């Protein structure tokens, strides 16, 4: 138990004596908030940010990848290592000497892929550890839950891997930012390649995970494919985490469809895709055409988990380490040197989000959240692996090229399971923020 006393001491030194008095009496809290002007003002101390990712449960591996990306970003911001994408980012105010001349520190937490645990972790970081920014997630549920909490407490939240439209759609918040792409963009981005590869006369059958993310994804993909001229035979909802999908796969075979679209993510997709292949779907002819399977949203770890079944399957990705721009090369190089393997898109988005936050603080010249938010809004940058990118102010969504990828037919290692086969330009995946509703809310924090 003494261990924690030590930890507490170390933390208290950094957070400042203000916290101690605040903890002892609730009355002082309001005074402190007033005196500091905003939540967890680092003042003269080192700033602390919180990395809250799933470290246990189904998505632990994606979360731990993200954590590696975060830790690398902190190193580079503090001027350790080779600097990674700080050297390629344009424009950048980062100098590799920490943030505003202070050394960046971090705390970590385990969200267990559970919204309640994610919020518990975020509150610990904000209330106990004095985090001035919280980041990280692997599902949209976690992202929305943490984003709403951070907005109420007046702490900026940079989301990690979240692909549902809601994060920057109907549940968007002034204090929440997303670098990752989302379902609508996947649909728009994948459509041209689908038309090219499979033609405009196709009949599609959707299997959709039965929760918010699945629905938004299904809606987006359906709209995009129907615009190509494809017909939707049927869209079937499958329970989350069911494992065995055989009872949903057999009806596909004789439905008259010639394309199966799996709106599944993570563990669901790792099971449903190989099972679909086992049912002989890829060896089958339907309506005089080769039967095809599409997985609109991919991640490297999912592809590894799905094994051989992923070969030749088309999907979309936020980023891939095999890209040949300066930023991607720099990042892959320093990540590989650090951990001995190439980075995943989960690590990339975490790394980039941390850099973007640090850069915004540097440009704003303060940690005061409204100023940092204004610095991030409508920020236009390049050199972080995705080409020219815009952080749109009206919904806090990043707009950049979307990659279309295909499962590698002959992977030489577990790291090149996906090949980049196309890039859909940024202009094509832009949309009107009004279509998803929601409101960002005020700049001024509510309370701490």
């Amino acid at each position: 138990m003494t261990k924690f006393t030590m930890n507490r001491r170390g933390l208290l030194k950094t957070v400042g004596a203000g916290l101690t008095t605040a903890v002892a009496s609730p009355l002082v809290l309001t005074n402190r908030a007033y005196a500091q002007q905003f939540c967890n003002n680092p003042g003269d101390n080192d700033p602390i940010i919180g990395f809250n990712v799933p470290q246990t449960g189904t998505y632990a591996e994606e979360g731990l990848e993200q954590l590696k990306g975060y830790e690398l970003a902190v190193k580079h911001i503090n001027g350790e290592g080779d600097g990674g994408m700080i050297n390629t980012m344009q424009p950048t105010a980062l100098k590799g000497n920490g943030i505003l001349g202070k050394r960046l520190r971090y705390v970590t937490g385990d969200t267990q892929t559970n919204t309640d645990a994610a919020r518990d972790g975020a509150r610990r970081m904000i209330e106990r550890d004095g985090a001035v920014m919280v980041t990280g997630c692997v599902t949209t549920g976690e992202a929305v839950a943490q984003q709403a909490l951070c907005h109420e407490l007046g702490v900026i939240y940079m989301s990690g891997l979240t692909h549902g439209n809601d994060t920057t759609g109907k549940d968007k918040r002034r204090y929440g930012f997303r670098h990752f792409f989302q379902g609508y963009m996947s649909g728009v981005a994948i459509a041209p390649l689908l038309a090219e590869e499979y033609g405009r006369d196709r009949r599609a059958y959707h299997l959709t995970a039965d929760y918010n993310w699945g629905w938004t994804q299904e809606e987006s993909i359906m709209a995009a494919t129907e615009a190509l001229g494809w017909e939707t035979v049927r869209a079937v909802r499958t329970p989350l985490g069911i494992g065995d999908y055989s009872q949903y796969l057999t009806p596909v075979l004789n439905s008259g469809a010639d394309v199966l679209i799996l709106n599944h993510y993570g563990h669901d997709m790792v099971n449903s895709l190989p099972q679909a292949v086992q049912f002989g779907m890829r060896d089958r002819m339907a309506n005089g055409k080769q039967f095809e399977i599409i997985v609109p949203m991919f991640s490297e770890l999912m592809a590894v988990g799905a094994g051989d079944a992923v070969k030749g399957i088309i999907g979309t990705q936020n980023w891939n380490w095999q890209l040949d721009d300066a930023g991607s090369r720099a990042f892959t190089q320093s990540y590989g040197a650090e951990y001995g393997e190439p980075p995943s898109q989960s690590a990339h988005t975490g790394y980039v989000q941390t850099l973007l936050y640090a850069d915004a603080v540097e440009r704003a010249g303060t940690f005061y959240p409204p100023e940092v938010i204004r610095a991030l809004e409508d920020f236009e940058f390049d050199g972080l692996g995705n080409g020219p990118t815009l952080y749109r102010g009206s919904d806090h969504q990043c707009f950049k090229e979307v990659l279309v990828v295909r499962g590698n037919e002959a992977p030489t290692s577990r790291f090149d399971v996906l090949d980049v086969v196309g890039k859909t330009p940024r202009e094509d995946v832009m949309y009107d923020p009004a279509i998803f509703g929601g409101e960002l809310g005020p700049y001024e924090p509510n309370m701490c």
Partner: protein
Amino acid sequence: MDAILAQLLNGLDKGGAYALIALGLTLVFGTLGVVNFAHGALFMLGCFCAVVFRYLLTIETVTVDPTQLSPWGAPVEVRTPLVQSWLGDWGAFLVDYSVPLSVIFAVPVMLVIGIVMERGLIKHFYKRSHAEQILVTFGLAIVLQEIVRSFFGANPVPQPIPADLRVAADVGVWFGMEAYSVTYPTWRLVYLLFSAGVIGAVFAFMRFTTFGMVVRAGMADRETVGILGIDIDRKFTIVFGLAAVVAGVAGAMYTPLLAPNYHIGMDFLVLSFVVVVVGGMGSLPGAVVAGFLLGVLQSFASMNEVTSIFPGIDQIIIYLVAIIILLVRPRGLMGRSGVMES
């Protein structure tokens, strides 16, 4: 018609897996009177027997090729599997058939794991309350999971089907239907036959051997069997080992259908309890019947024709059926009175 046949096959396939998992659990309930929350973990360990077996078969020699460089500047490693270089085609065959062959590996391993678990921990809890049994077996399950995780990580580890069995069989033709009206993965048919075989073997073992007779007598009336001078404790150790083996081989053979991760046991835990209780406590045939019943009903409830009338029925069918059966039949399908009722 073809849709019904396909769903029946799906249901039987699921049912086979459910029944195999439930069989071991109900054995332990009925004989030892222990609520074993680590049973899911035994299934998980079985899955990882297949993973480990394949891993052992594919141990490679690693040589560094300095002429080629990875993107971050380290030399590329060249790997050659040892088995293949030693045994040639025969080695390639071993690697290809790693999953079915892993059953041979899983049986002794799971037997040892089961016996060690029973002797080391479970046997001290026969006389303790069910509450404490839950706590200790749940704790044990977590520890086992974490050990597996520290070796294999949290990502699923896919296991391939042997190349010869990868094609989908045209089942419809066997029933006189048109070609390609019902195609079904060969491996699922293999799994169905396998589960039927294991269930048959367990029943034969319990029916026709003296050991099985004693165990059945012990399930019915433990005290009397003890008084007759039979060392029932020793027998029960083996029963626990047997339960572990059945759960383990069920897991090992299931890996190509469901890529295992360290958490897979927990996903099956609740389901296996439901199957056992619906079947009736202390009844082996009950567990098998309930397994197949729930599997088949789950498949049929997922048909589009059904879900269009009752949206979401496929999500809850198992629990709905469990509730109805337990309300209509107080002790499940074939339960005996007095087992785990207080």
